[in-house]
């Protein structure tokens, strides 16, 4: 476990800023407790300082996880956000997409969001913008990237893709072995 280097922090922040924009400040500078990012075995954890200080006592090979896992660094140094970061992203998401009940299961099986399943979408969402996907009763289900801007979606046919799937809560079941 160690703090991120400047390059690593940059990679993490740019990825997160894609979804929550300037709200990222609220993650770094929290009013309730000081939180920090820690790297452990190429996974990035977002953890309160007190927890982190206690976890220092745990030896490196024995420590599995602490706080919330945000994602992992690939061997080539790229950062991939994991579904486990959804909680914090959903809290501060700038652009949101709601999907209808009949679209929930297809999305949770790892499919893209089709126009037919689209319930609501934040106004003025640009193209290729990171969005958090919710069910109609505001349960966060995952996140992805918009394929079209909000204005363009009106002209599309119902089977066209609106949001490219990136991660969904179904991964807790599907990718349990690789996720952690």
């Amino acid at each position, binding site marked *: 476990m160690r703090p991120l280097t400047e390059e690593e922090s940059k990679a993490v922040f740019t990825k997160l800023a894609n979804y929550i924009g300037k709200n990222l*400040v609220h993650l*770094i500078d929290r009013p309730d407790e*000081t939180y920090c990012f820690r790297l452990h075995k190429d996974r990035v954890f977002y953890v309160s300082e007190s927890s982190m200080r206690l976890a220092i006592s745990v030896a490196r090979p024995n420590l599995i996880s602490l706080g919330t896992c945000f994602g992992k660094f690939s061997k080539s140094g790229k950062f991939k956000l994991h579904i486990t970061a959804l909680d914090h992203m959903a809290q501060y998401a700038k652009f949101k997409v709601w999907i209808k009940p009949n679209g929930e299961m297809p999305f949770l099986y790892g499919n893209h969001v089709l126009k037919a399943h689209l319930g609501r979408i934040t106004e003025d969402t640009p193209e290729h913008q990171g969005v958090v996907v919710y069910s109609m009763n505001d349960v966060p289900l995952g996140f992805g990237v918009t394929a079209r801007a909000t204005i363009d979606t009106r002209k599309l046919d119902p089977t066209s893709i609106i949001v490219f799937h990136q991660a969904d809560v179904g991964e807790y079941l599907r990718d349990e072995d690789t996720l952690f």
Partner: protein
Amino acid sequence: MDVSSILGSFGPTQDDNDPEESNYILDAGYLTVTNTTPIDADLYNENIEQSIEQNARESSQKLLGALFHLPSTASADGRLALLPPPTFALPREKPLPKAKEMTKWERFAAAKGIQKKKREKKIWDEEKQEWVDRWGWKGKNKEGETQWLHEVPSNADVDHDPRKIARDERKARTAKNEKQKLQNLSHSTGQSSNDRKQEIERTLATTRVSTASIGKFDRQLEGEKKPRGIKRKFEPTEVSAEQEKKNALALFSSINSDSRKKRPETSGDNSVINVRKAIRTASKGQGGVALARKLDSGKRKSKR
């Protein structure tokens, strides 16, 4: 003072039949005398100083006696004996030089039994009807480049240049030879190619950090590898969270400003003209402010 008569009185005449006489080996060239008579142990032990003294006296008498038999020349300081060349073989101080390692060609020639032929520097020129140099200034090997008329094949390209081709060929030959020479040289000094690679890498690593900023602000070249063997240093885990937060915020704000520079918010701006690009071309890449200043100064000039 002439002592020759005195010396002559008990010189060689007396010693001719001495059995010890043959034990003295004289080398006048080095002014050396060697007494090979075995030392009488009793006598020697009885009085060491005396026996050595006696031996030294007798030996030096032999040497000095011999000097007077040598041919001599007169000088202002007196007579000088002409020393014969030394006969004593002194041992060599340094080891013998190693045999030069054979080049690759020499090894091949030795294996095939090819004899080395002396190549004349001069060569007969049929045209000029005289001996010309094989290479060098006005050498025969430059004939293809210097001749006044060149043959051009019918299917040659437009830019076909026989002179250049001939020159390139010649230069390539020289370069090849030079390369072989270097290879032979490095081989003979026992340097492997791996050493060379390492040396290059070391030099490269040195040059990378040999800037005023210790290489911090140098632009990375494409395909340039990260310097190896340099240990990364991380912040300690238990660093103050306040400091960490400050750093993170600073980093975040820098990222934010970067992104704004890169991608301005052009949403809703559907005009045909790309203003930014226009300014760039008009100001020749110097930016809008510079352009305004220029225009301003131009106006003032025209007013005058």
